[in-house]
């Protein structure tokens, strides 16, 4: 401690100074930059080229909104979007109710084989989509059910249900187990306790689980391609059939729109998660 004060101070400053304004040229820094580059540069390029006037991707011929224009005039895209939205909204809607009830039931009641039941309920989270798709197709064919809008919805519900139930039960685990009893104690019958106390407490989880499975349903190509029929043509299938013959710039524009929409939903979901953290105590 007898070292000249200035030297000690500058040494301390050097070691403690936050390297906030310098690029971290350590190997970790370079690796991280590389990773983020690999993740986001393609998306950035895609976004930029969606404004390219050129018909052929590689050359830049000036800013243009023509691909957005052609996109919004494309009836097939809108029909596909409508199919996707119908599937996602109906599947998520039904799954929200069933998934919430499933989570509550699993948390509340003790019964024989509960662990097995719980495991089976969450299995769709790890079963590959291709397996769900093929299995559902084989099942439907065996049962003699023709593919239509409802077969896709049913197949999507398989994974939507599992996601919502997982999110809701993790929220349930964080809740005071005596909340429902407190409501009963104050004179609420079991239905009132569920509606006035438990559901409001679970709402943030139901919403964020619903948004998560909504995005997954909108994104699904594999399960839809096995289970859609009768003229139902969800957006991912439509896009996939278009890019097989080469990427056209209007698909770039569509991708940008989809990314924006996903971002909005993610922001909503985050907001509800934060809200849920505030009210869980």
């Amino acid at each position: 401690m007898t070292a000249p004060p200035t030297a000690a101070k500058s040494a301390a400053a050097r070691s403690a100074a936050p390297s906030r304004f310098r690029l971290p040229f350590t190997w970790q820094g370079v690796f991280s930059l590389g990773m983020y580059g690999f993740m986001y540069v393609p998306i950035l390029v895609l976004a930029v080229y969606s404004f390219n006037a050129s018909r052929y991707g590689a050359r830049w011929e000036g800013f243009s909104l023509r691909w957005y224009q052609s996109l919004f005039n494309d009836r097939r895209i809108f029909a596909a979007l409508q199919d996707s939205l119908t599937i996602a909204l109906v599947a998520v809607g039904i799954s929200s109710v069933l998934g919430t009830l499933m989570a509550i039931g699993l948390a509340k009641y003790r019964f024989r084989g509960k662990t097995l039941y719980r495991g089976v309920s969450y299995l769709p989270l790890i079963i590959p989509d291709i397996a769900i798709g093929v299995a559902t197709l084989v099942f439907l064919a065996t049962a003699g059910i023709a593919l239509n809008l409802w077969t896709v919805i049913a197949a999507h519900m398989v994974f939507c249900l599992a996601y919502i139930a997982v999110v809701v039960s993790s929220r349930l685990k964080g809740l005071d187990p005596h909340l429902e009893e407190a409501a009963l104690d104050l004179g609420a019958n079991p239905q009132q306790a569920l509606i006035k106390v438990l559901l409001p407490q679970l709402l943030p989880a139901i919403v964020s689980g619903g948004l998560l499975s909504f995005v997954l349903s909108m994104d699904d190509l594999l399960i839809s391609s096995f289970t859609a029929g009768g003229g139902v043509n969800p957006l991912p299938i439509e896009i996939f059939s278009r890019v097989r013959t080469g990427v056209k710039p209007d698909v770039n524009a569509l991708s940008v729109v989809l990314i924006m929409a996903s971002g909005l939903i993610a922001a909503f979901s985050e907001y509800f998660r934060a809200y849920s953290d505030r009210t869980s105590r």
Partner: protein
Amino acid sequence: MSQTTSTQRSAPPAAATLDVELRQVFKIFGPDTAVKGVDLKIRQGEFFSILGPSGCGKTTTLRLIAGFETPTTGEVLLQGRNVSHMPAYRRPVNTVFQSYALFGHMSVWDNIAFGLRIKRVGKSEVRTQVAEALRLVQMESFARRVPGQLSGGQQQRVALARALVNRPAVMLLDEPLGALDLKLRKEMQVELSNLHRKLGITFIMVTHDQEEALSLSDRIAVMRDGEIEQVGTPSQIYDFPKTPFVADFIGETNLVRGKVDQAARDGLKVTTDTGLQVWVQPPKIEIPLTAGMAAVVSVRPEKIRLSTQASPAQPGQNCFAGRLQHVMYLGTHLQCRVVLNTGEHLTVLQPNRHQRLPELETPVYASWAATDCLALAAKSPASELTDAS
């Protein structure tokens, strides 16, 4: 170290109307029997505590009264009515939970109004009653907050207000002060006691804190392994425990295990395996003991005196030689550990009068009057507690 501070408070007379009665209640969860044949009579307006170590079945007993559990066999009566199978939401009781269980998505005001609104009480009536409840717990200025913004003590007050606004016949409190720090706990003890006096309704509190039970209750039931060991006023429980378990659990005590040697009307002599002979004299012989029975002598640390000289042997006085092993300074008291020459360990509490204590490891004499100790029948030596060490 605890004192009976409420000896002056009189419990409602035994003839008073009963608010809660449990008759031979058993509760079995799978392989475990949580409550084993409990009989309880709780009088109207009483502050009744159920005291016991964790896992003794006291919370299950409370939940049976609240209606969250139904008895496997036996009956639960509320104001004379058999409610054994009545659901919780129809019972005229309200509970304060250990975790408070406040509704996080509602304001303090809405939490307290919840019960009244469920019962479809008129709007203006709800307003006056909630305001009154808030005033009772001194939380008027917090009505618009949500529970997440309150401290533990404030949440506790809201939980109390939410229960008492419904004017229940019986208030049930499950370790109500368990989550608070020591200072706040002391404050809330006083407030609970005041609230009880103001409202005049029956309070049933579950606690593992013997000091809390002694200072607040009119009567206490001590539970152990699903059974009730003793029911009585705080002073009965502290001064005349009926079993070695109660003697040891309530306050501190020294237990000396032995066999009854002589039993006469004016006293009895208990001899330990090590040859220690302890005189015990009425009035504190509760259970009739006869010669040859296994017995446990209980003597409170504050009843023992230490000296460097042996007091002359006389009937009615116990005096044993030993050596001072350890002294702990407690401020108001000094807590000494003495090992008797026969091997028993005694804890002795001496008021702090700045006296000079004998040197450590020097011979001392521990003495107490035969009327200051109790002889209790040792039920089954295997299940009893270890001796005073």
